[in-house]
């Protein structure tokens, strides 16, 4: 049963809002897990990986610019995704880390992508780095810019994709995430059209330690997994679609106070 329950990936996250839509009997367990989050072990490992000299070029990530200058991590997560002139594109945290790991450290993109999601047999460096970097914005407010024309365009594309229905089950993101206090089985579905809930999800939702997967999972994984439940093919890692949806959600989460990594079923 263990292997099976771990293999069951879930469509949606437990509501970070707690009481709303909560089924009595679940909340004590959720609270106990949140108080001592194994995700802290990923933060610890991510910190080590960030400062370690790694990759074919044997350099650390201290020269990686996540939008606030090389190596500046405090507040970096809070303003992503954003436009980067060196790549002339809007990037989320994972896409930007890919740029740095390839461009600075000399890793092969395909290798990082192949190991983007850890398994029970192999940890993902990306999941650890994201946990660490996100935690460096704890206590700060989400503050994703829409100043650059590309940022506005990507945001609007994200909105378009949020409502776009397709696939054998006619699902869009909005099918599950635009109404109050809904659940798939017992899993609460946050209403991402509600300003408060979207704030909570983007500032305390991902990265999160997933108990069913025994690993930290990132926003990229969250979108990948939704795609899976929607019966669409494997969503490309750091694809334009994933970044557009993240821009749409994260910008609308501006003002939410960051506390990451979270903990989820």
């Amino acid at each position, binding site marked *: 049963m263990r292997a099976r329950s771990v293999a069951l990936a*879930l469509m949606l996250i437990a509501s970070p809002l707690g009481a709303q839509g909560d*089924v009595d009997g679940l909340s004590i*367990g959720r609270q*106990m897990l949140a108080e001592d989050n194994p995700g802290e072990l990923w933060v610890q490992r991510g910190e080590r990986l960030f400062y370690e000299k790694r990759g074919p070029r044997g350099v650390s990530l201290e020269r990686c610019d996540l939008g606030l200058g090389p190596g500046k991590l405090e507040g970096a997560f809070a303003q992503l995704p954003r436009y980067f002139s060196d790549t002339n594109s809007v990037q989320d945290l994972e896409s930007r880390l890919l740029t740095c790991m390839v461009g600075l450290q000399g890793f092969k993109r395909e290798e990082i992508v192949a190991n983007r999601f850890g398994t029970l047999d192999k940890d993902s460096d990306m999941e650890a780095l994201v946990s660490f970097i996100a935690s460096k914005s704890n206590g700060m407010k989400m503050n994703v810019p829409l100043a650059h024309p590309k940022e506005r365009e990507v945001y609007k594309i994200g909105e378009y994709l949020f409502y776009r229905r397709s696939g054998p089950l006619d699902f869009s993101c909005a099918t599950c995430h635009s109404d109050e206090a809904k659940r*798939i089985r*017992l899993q609460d579905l946050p209403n991402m059209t509600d300003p408060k809930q979207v704030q909570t999800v983007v500032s305390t939702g991902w990265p999160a330690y997933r*108990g069913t997967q025994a690993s930290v999972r990132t926003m990229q994984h969250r979108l990948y997994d939704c795609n899976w439940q929607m019966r669409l093919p494997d969503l490309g890692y750091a694809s334009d679609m994933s970044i557009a949806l993240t821009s749409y959600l994260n910008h609308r989460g501006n003002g939410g106070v960051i506390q990451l990594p979270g903990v989820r079923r």
Partner: protein
Amino acid sequence: MNRRRRTLLAWAGGTAAAAGLIPLRASAANWNKPGFEAKASNDAIKNLGAANLIESKEITITAPDIAENGAVVPVAVTSRIPNTQSISIVAEKNPFPLAATFDMANGAEPYASVRIKMGQTSHVRAVVKAADGRFYTASKEVKVTVGGCG
């Protein structure tokens, strides 16, 4: 062979390896092999040294009524029984019910919080050993749901 049987065998085989085939060093001395290898919760409890269990309201089990993930079920036990020496946690319907034993000494409060795997809905039983040699118990049912979309 059906899935369940395969699973049980795998788990049983694994334990045999843990208990004997793999050379154990420091840990073996203080590990209740017969208790952990017992397949019925009664046997597991007997192997804790308990002949009789006294139901007690002085034991509090904190755990969810519904566990949304059987792989990680938080369980905390608090005993208010004077001179509590040890607390054991038994998931009655697990293939090997005894999950953990905590011996307290030198100022440790009679409290332990841990997370366990549960294969199915079951009672979780706390067994408390007091200095007078008596064993006290309380239990709580934890429902284990299937995966949300599976």
